[in-house]
């Protein structure tokens, strides 16, 4: 469903700030696979997501979604394949517009927009049904401006808007990181439900190892632009946060040794 092949990405190439973000990354997701990505800061997790969404273009290598080569397409041109939820709860919705207008824009993802009315009776009923699944009472507040909602409510709405039109790929960029623990739990529970319901191929970046183990069917760990650990469902079930931390230590130590050796 998603094939990232030999992708290499360097930021600020040719300057003193040159930083290699991704080194020959290869990653393939089968349909319905839910991959969680962990790693330290600067490991390249977000870069993988941004390369997939089209916000960044790889220096070399290709990105294919469901057989279509999208490497050269801009983010809005790929949007028909991709649903995204951002880290910032403010980023995924338009604050000055109403809930139903926001949902209507999401509903038209990747379609050619015409001069038909943005919100129709039929769409409104559909939105109400979808909002009920969030169990936040938003189905009765269709005409409220999204700016009036709390961060958790906005993030739940973003998740719904990113998924209800069944994208080929769902990208989640630390989408629970900015929420308080209770809201984060709610949004992660909704994530599991919605991915299950629509059988979405999902790539989720997270800082929370416990969450990375609990959600999804596969886990990858990144470090300095490489994928250093890739475990499937079976093994993931047996792994604990301690194991992951241990793995981290091992790699960090190793990296340190390399550097010491070179000096």
């Amino acid at each position, binding site marked *: 469903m998603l094939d990232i092949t030999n992708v290499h990405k360097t930021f600020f190439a040719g300057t003193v700030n040159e930083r290699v973000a991704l080194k020959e990354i290869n990653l393939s997701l089968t349909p319905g696979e839910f991959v969680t990505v962990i790693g330290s800061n600067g490991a390249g997790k977000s870069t993988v997501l941004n390369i997939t969404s089209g916000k960044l273009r790889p220096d070399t290598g290709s990105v294919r979604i469901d057989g279509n080569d999208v490497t050269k397409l801009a983010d809005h041109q790929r*949007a028909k394949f991709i649903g995204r939820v951002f880290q910032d709860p403010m980023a995924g919705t*338009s604050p000055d517009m109403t809930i139903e207008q926001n949902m209507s824009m999401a509903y038209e993802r990747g379609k050619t927009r015409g001069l038909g009315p943005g919100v129709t009776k039929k769409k409104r009923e559909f939105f109400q049904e979808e909002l009920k699944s969030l169990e936040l009472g938003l189905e009765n507040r269709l005409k409220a401006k999204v700016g009036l909602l709390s961060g958790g409510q906005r993030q739940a709405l973003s998740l719904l808007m990113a998924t209800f039109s069944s994208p080929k790929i769902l990208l989640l960029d630390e989408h629970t990181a900015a929420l308080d623990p209770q809201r984060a739990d709610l949004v992660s529970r909704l994530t599991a439900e919605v991915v299950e319901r629509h059988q979405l191929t999902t790539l989720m970046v997270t800082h929370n190892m416990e969450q990375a183990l609990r959600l999804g069917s596969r886990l990858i760990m990144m470090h300095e632009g490489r994928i250093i650990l890739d475990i499937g469902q079976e093994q993931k079930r047996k792994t604990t946060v301690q194991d992951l931390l241990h793995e981290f230590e091992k790699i960090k130590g190793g990296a340190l040794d390399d550097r010491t050796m070179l000096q």
Partner: protein
Amino acid sequence: MIVAVELGLIYAIMALGVYLTFRILNFPDLTVDGSFTTGAAVASIMIINGFSPVVSTIAAFGAGLVAGWITGILHTKGKINGLLAGILTMIALYSINLRIMGRANLPLLREETLITPLRDAGLLGTAMSVVVFSLFALAVKFVIDWFLHTDVGLAMQATGDNEEMIRSFGVSTDRMKILGLALSNGLVGLCGALIAQYQGFADIGMGIGLILAGLASVIIGQAIFGSRLIIIASLAVVLGSVLYRVVIQLALQAGLNPNDMKLISAVLVVTALVLPQWKFFKRIGGLANMRKSLTGAGAKG
């Protein structure tokens, strides 16, 4: 005073154009000063050359569209800062307008224009003409209301509100900005054509400082009449435009020099922008709208 109301209602079309860019797209567009004159020039020269006033006025709308489109291309494809893109088009249009007109002033006094029927019937300056101009301004307002609630219109609103989000739903925000700028300047050109016909001449300097009148109408109108919903916000722009012309008229009647009007307009806009920031005025409930319109999106929290 009725003349001021009439002018306010005609200028409301320009103010609605400014509303589209300044509020909806969050883009202060200075093309307006040039495209207004372009509209007046195109309509006037066509009327003088025997085209029907209706065709000429529609052509003025088209000329404005092109002007806005150019600013949009400069800003999105050329990656030029929005203010500068507007200024560049505005300055270039000055020469183009002179080319269109052939000279600095084109009188229309003996020509058949859209205003002629009203003038011949002796209705100008009466309640009847106010009704006619109101109907026209409201028609434009309703078209904008309708447009902003279509799928494209929603995408345009979101482009000004949260660009990254609407891109993630497959909308080219560049295209939305170009479209918005074109429509906005189309309305400004249309307004220029009507003003030229109303006052009986087109003049190369008629657009200078016009953006201030547009901004004043939008800011003052929305501060007083609110902006919670699009339909209210656009009505507020029309009323704001009328109010602005009435205030200018009162200032003139009070004996102020007409040459000082641009300075007075500027002071008026600065006042409307600065006053609501002061603590004293923040406490006055009615001014909450003004503060909101000042800080932009408002309910971003």
